[in-house]
């Protein structure tokens, strides 16, 4: 089963996506809050949901006002599930609970024709509402369709008589002059009020009994309303970020020009644009290498985000997406939390890695590992990552590793590199740095190409670090020495 820690949701941008949804009903809000991922054995259900989402997104523009009307009705739904289970247990509901039930049924009645229209345009599979009119007959026997709830005089003959008497007494009380007369009338009135109360209770009890056969339909409607609410939100999200209907594969993952909505928005605010990332991977290890500051982590987080979105029934933020369903998705990113757990950074990293492996071996999984063993000495670190890569090649999972270590990439099934500063003319940057621009980090960020390209054959990690050092104007004495050491290695 997929479960993602809150910290990881935040770090990959999934929480950002969820926060951008505005579910209207309590049922829809619950679906967003308790996001559920489809399990691999629910493949058919996921396909249905994805199809619904894609069609709903496609019609979002043409059916805008219809969607808004539906959302308006959904906004007015109250969570009546507590009352429904009390009803099922045989509790006699009070006035306010019956009012809420009536309100719910009225909203469903209002929703039905709108849903039918949406269904016509979008063809929503596997979702239906039941006709509330029979249940409404119980709660609105005089078919007033007023929003309020009131037990009408005509609900029973005794009630009619009691209410008539109550009214007469009130008139007499209003006209009474002496205190003694008033007191006598008040006592009389108290008796009548008690009778009214018990008669109303009997009527409420009868209403509850009559409603009993409709409880499961109302529960199903509440659930369907939540799904409809969530579906519309997913569709609107897809429209906002150019979501695409993914093709479900057995094992292969292929994401073309994918984006990360949170980073997209963040960069847009700064007047920059997110560079779409493409990657393909299959069972076994895929290694990403590349410059520091080059966005290896971003690439991996975006893969995780989109895989998870797909498995929750969202459209994928990419031009084209082919994805398998995963038994679990594991993220092993550098995070502060685990370092504070008492173990050293390295220790806790290895503990988490073994735990993740154990879980991933239960079914086809996605493992994303960012710079494993980064904290240890490079010689040992490289050996560890090489061994892990070999092992993961045989594991029943897509594993994507980002690493700096040499000698890892050629062991993997596929090797990607961050384009980084590869195509940039160093002289251009130098010129810029010697000009007015003093902020080296900003200059690098501007020239850095965060895209990935697939490396065929053997290739060592790019040596962009040296370039970056130059741009950040490290002391020339140190730079010279580094350059000299590269030269001696070459010769």
């Amino acid at each position, binding site marked *: 089963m997929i479960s993602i820690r809150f910290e990881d949701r935040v770090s990959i941008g999934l929480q950002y996506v969820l926060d951008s949804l505005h579910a209207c009903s309590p049922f829809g809000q619950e679906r967003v809050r308790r996001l559920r991922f489809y399990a691999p054995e629910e493949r058919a259900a996921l396909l249905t949901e994805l199809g619904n989402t894609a069609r709903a997104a496609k019609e979002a523009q043409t059916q805008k006002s219809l969607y808004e009307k539906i959302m308006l009705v959904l906004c007015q739904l109250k969570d009546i599930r507590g009352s429904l289970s009390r009803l099922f247990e045989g509790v006699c509901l009070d006035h306010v609970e019956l009012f809420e039930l009536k309100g719910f049924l009225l909203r469903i009645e209002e929703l039905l024709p709108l849903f039918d229209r949406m269904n016509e345009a979008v063809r929503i599979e596997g979702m239906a509402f039941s006709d509330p009119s029979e249940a409404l007959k119980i709660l609105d026997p005089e078919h007033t369709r007023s929003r*309020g709830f009131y037990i009408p005089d005509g609900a029973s003959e005794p009630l009619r008589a009691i209410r008539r008497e109550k009214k007469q007494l*009130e008139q007499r009380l209003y006209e009474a002059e002496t205190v003694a007369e008033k007191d006598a009338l008040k006592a009389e009135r108290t008796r009548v009020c008690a009778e009214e109360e018990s008669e109303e209770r009997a009527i409420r009890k009868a209403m509850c009994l009559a409603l009993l056969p409709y409880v499961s339909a109302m529960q199903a409607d509440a659930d369907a309303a939540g799904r409809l609410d969530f579906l519309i939100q997913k569709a609107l999200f897809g429209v906002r970020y150019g979501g695409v209907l993914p093709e479900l594969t057995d094992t292969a993952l292929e994401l073309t020009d994918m984006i990360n909505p949170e980073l997209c928005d963040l960069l847009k605010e700064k007047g920059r644009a997110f560079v779409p990332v493409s990657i393909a991977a299959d069972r076994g290890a895929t290694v990403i290498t590349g410059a520091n500051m080059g966005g290896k982590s971003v690439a991996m987080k975006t893969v995780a985000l989109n895989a998870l979105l797909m498995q929750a029934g969202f459209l994928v933020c990419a031009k084209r997406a082919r994805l398998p369903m995963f038994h679990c998705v594991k993220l092993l990113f550098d995070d502060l939390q685990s370092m504070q757990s008492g173990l050293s950074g390295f220790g806790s990293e290895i503990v988490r890695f073994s735990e993740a492996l154990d879980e991933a071996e239960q079914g086809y999984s996605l493992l994303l590992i960012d710079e494993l063993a980064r904290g240890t000495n490079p010689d040992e670190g490289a050996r560890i990552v090489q061994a892990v890569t070999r092992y993961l090649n045989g594991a029943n999972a897509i594993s994507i590793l980002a690493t700096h270590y040499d000698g890892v990439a050629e062991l993997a099934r596929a090797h990607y590199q961050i384009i980084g500063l590869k195509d940039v003319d160093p002289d251009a940057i130098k010129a810029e740095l010697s000009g007015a621009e003093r902020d080296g980090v900003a200059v690098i960020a501007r020239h850095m190409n965060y895209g990935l390209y697939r490396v065929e054959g053997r290739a060592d990690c790019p040596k962009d670090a040296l370039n970056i050092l130059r741009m950040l104007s490290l002391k020339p004495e140190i730079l010279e020495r580094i350059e000299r050491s590269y030269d001696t290695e070459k010769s």
Partner: protein
Amino acid sequence: MRDDLDKRIAEARTLSIVGMCKNAGKTTVLNWLLNRSRDRVLGLTSIGRDGESVDVVTGTEKPGIFIPEGTLIATAKDMLSLCDITQEIVCTTGIPTPLGEVVLVRAKSAGNVQLAGPSITSQLKTVSGLFFSLGADQTIIDGALGRKSLGARTVAENVILCTGASYDMRMEKVVQDTANVFRLLNLKKAETPPEESEKPLKELLRESGEALIPGALTDTAILPLLKSGALRNARLVVKDPSKVLLSPDTLEKLSVRGVSLETVDAAKTLCVTVNPVSAYGWKFDPDAFLRAMEAAVTVPVINVKEALS
């Protein structure tokens, strides 16, 4: 004077009944208001809980609230079983109270009700808005007691101030303190409030002769300024009257120096009611009490025991 008062009460869109103390006669006033205009739809709620037939604080008998048919009330859900009106639930508000959500109910028959309304100003405004959208002609808020009642004017534009012998054994003290609250309730509305400023009060007054007091106005802040003469003929504006924590003596001094004390949120006090009988056993002479109170305020004064029952 009474005719004029009746007219002003009838014209008030929102009306808050506030008391100097428990047993000041608030509920008597409320019942009188509720039953004097049976052809109009009233919306009724309270700040916090009220309406119990025995005062839960003092243990004394008190009148219940009896509403005519057609009245709208806003009260906590758990209070509904204690109301003997025939109820139509009109809407739920989502406003939580310790006694359940606040629910709006239309009385399909006359009867006794127990009120436990919202306790936050903004929620009271929401409820009052709901009453009007449901067709109410007037909203009545059974308001708070003592100092807290000074906040009432941020909710309702009109106030009825209730006082009585239960406040203190000394009639002079009752009259003096009531007059003090009355004066604060009736602070002039600041038509053009001065702009908020970070500068010290003294500097502001010297520059422009006026200042907006962002927080509370206290004796310790005002007395030195009075002595230095910086306040002469100045204009001081507070957010609402509950922010004025000055002693009656200081207030008097301010008025002598020609200081104009104004407020951003303003309301009118329509009348003062007096209850000469204390819940604790003592009584004032009704006529002397009424006359003393009349001399101390500028609005009609009504004896609840005689004029309203």
